[in-house]
C-alpha cells in the first residue's frame, strides 16, 4: 500500500491506546441530545452508552431520525451533547470550547460527508493541502509530497489539479477521503459516504475503507445500506435515539 507514513503513524497511535486504562478509543457515557424548537423538544439521543476500540471499523445503521447523524456529530464535536460524556482518545470532547473543538477535530478526526464538501474553487490537491494547513501537524515542506501520496493512496493522483465539479461523484468522494486523512487522524467518521454514489463508486469507497481499516485506522460509518454495513467489523443499530442491537459481522 502506498502512503507509508500513514502506516507508521497508525502504529504509533496504537501504542498510545494500549497505555489507556480501558483501551477504548471512543467511550460514550449516558449521552443525551435534545433539540428544542418552536414545535417542542425532540430527543435525538436518549442516554447512549457506546465503546469502540482502536482500529475498529464500525457501521451505524437505523432509520432516518433514529439518531445516526447526531451520534456521529457528537463524537466528532460538530454537535454538543445536552448531557453525558464523550471521550475520544482520552479527550473529553463534551468539555471543549467551540474553539478547542475545532483545533482538536482538525488534528484528531477526519470527517467524510455524503455530499463530499470539497471547496469548489480549489483543485483536488489544494483541498488536501488546506486541511494540512489547518491541522498544522506536518511541516510545510512535507505537505505537497504527502498530499500527492494521499491522492495516490485513493487512486486520484491523476486528478490532482482538477477542480471538484469536473470530477465524478465517486472521484470527489475519494478526494474527500484523502483530505480526511490529511492530518493522519486517529478516527475517520463518515456520514453516509456512499449515499450520493452509484454502486460502482460505492464499491470503490468501501474498498478504500477496508484497506484503511486493515492498516489500523478506526472508522465509523453511518449508512442506511445493510449490505455495506455487513462489510464492517461491527454494526450498531439505532432506533429512537437508543442502541437497539449490535452485530459482530466478522
Amino acid at each position: 500500500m502506498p502512503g507509508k507514513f500513514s502506516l507508521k503513524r497508525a502504529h504509533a497511535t496504537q501504542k498510545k491506546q494500549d497505555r489507556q486504562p480501558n483501551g477504548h478509543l471512543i467511550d460514550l457515557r449516558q449521552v443525551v441530545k435534545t433539540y428544542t424548537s418552536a414545535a417542542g423538544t425532540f430527543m435525538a439521543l436518549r442516554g447512549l452508552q457506546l465503546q469502540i476500540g482502536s482500529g475498529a471499523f464500525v457501521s451505524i445503521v437505523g432509520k432516518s431520525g433514529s439518531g445516526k447523524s447526531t451520534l456521529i456529530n457528537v463524537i466528532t464535536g460538530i454537535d454538543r451533547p445536552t448531557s453525558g460524556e464523550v471521550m475520544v482518545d482520552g479527550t473529553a470532547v463534551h468539555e471543549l470550547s467551540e474553539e478547542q473543538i475545532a483545533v482538536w477535530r482538525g488534528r484528531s478526526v477526519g470527517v467524510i460527508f455524503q455530499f463530499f464538501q470539497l471547496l469548489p474553487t480549489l483543485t483536488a490537491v489544494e483541498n488536501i493541502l488546506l486541511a494540512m494547513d489547518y491541522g498544522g501537524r506536518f511541516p510545510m515542506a512535507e505537505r505537497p509530497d504527502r498530499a500527492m501520496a494521499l491522492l495516490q493512496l485513493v487512486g486520484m493522483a491523476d486528478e490532482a489539479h482538477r477542480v471538484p465539479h469536473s470530477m465524478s461523484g465517486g472521484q470527489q468522494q475519494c478526494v474527500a477521503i484523502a483530505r480526511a486523512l490529511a492530518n493522519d487522524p486517529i478516527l475517520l467518521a463518515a456520514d453516509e459516504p456512499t449515499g450520493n454514489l452509484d454502486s460502482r463508486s460505492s464499491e470503490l469507497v468501501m474498498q478504500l475503507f477496508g484497506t484503511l481499516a486493515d492498516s489500523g485506522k478506526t472508522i465509523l460509518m453511518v449508512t442506511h445500506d445493510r449490505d455495506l454495513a455487513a462489510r464492517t467489523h461491527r454494526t450498531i443499530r439505532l432506533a429512537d435515539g437508543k442502541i437497539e442491537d449490535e452485530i459482530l459481522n466478522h
Partner: protein
Amino acid sequence: MRSSTTRPGAVHRAPVIMELRAVEKIYSGVGGQVTALHCIDMRVRQAEFLVVTGRSGSGKTTLINCVTGLDRCTSGEIHVAGTAVHRLSPEKASRWRRHNVGVVFQSFELLPTLTAVENVMLPMDFAGSFDVRHQSRRALELLEAVEIADHARKVPAALSGGQQQRLAIARAMANDPPILVADEPTGSLDSVTAEAVLRVFDGLVERGKTVLMVTHDKDVAAHGSRTLTIADGELLDAAERASHA
C-alpha cells in the same frame, strides 16, 4: 458594446474589468455534443452589479465557471482583471482566483467542521496573505460587515441559511478580490434573507467591487445595476432588439 437595461447614473466611465469575446463552450458526451455557450460577448465595468438571468439549463452556471476559470471555454477569449483566464491551466486558475475573484455558490459550500471565523480565515491562510494576527482581525471585520460577528465561533450547521450565505460572502472577500461572482446565491433562501444577501452585494459595489451574479429569479435579477438575459447559451438583449424593431 452591447447596450441593455442600464439604470441611469451607472458606471459608464469605469474601466472594463471583465471582457468576453466570442466565447463558446461545447460539451462532448456519449450522447453527442451540447453547445452550452454560443458566441458570448460581454463587458463588465468596475463597480457594476451585473446580473445574468435565465432558466435552468440556459448556460448561466457554465458562464460563471468559465469566467472564474473553474471551467475552460472551448474557444473565444475571457479577460478578467487583466488576466487571460481562457489560457490558464486549472492549477494556475486556482492560484489566480485566490486574489482576483471570490465565488459564492447556491449551496454555500462552507467547511462543516470549521467555525465561521475559521472558514473566513481559510483563504487568507492558504494564500499566505496578511500576517496571522491580522488574519483573525480581518476575518472578524468581514463577519461584522455581513452582520454575523456574533456567530464567529459557531459551525455552519448552527447558522441559518441566510447567515451561512453571508458567511460565504465574507469568505469570498477574504483576500480582498476586486470581483465577486455569485451563482444563484439566493436560490436556497427565503425572500427576506435573500434581500439581506443582496444588500451585502450592494455594499460591496458601493465600495468599488464588481459583482457578477446569475439567477433564474426575476425579482432578484432586478436588483442589479444592469441585467442581461441568457437563453440556450446565447445572450439576448431585449433593449437592443426593441430599439431595432
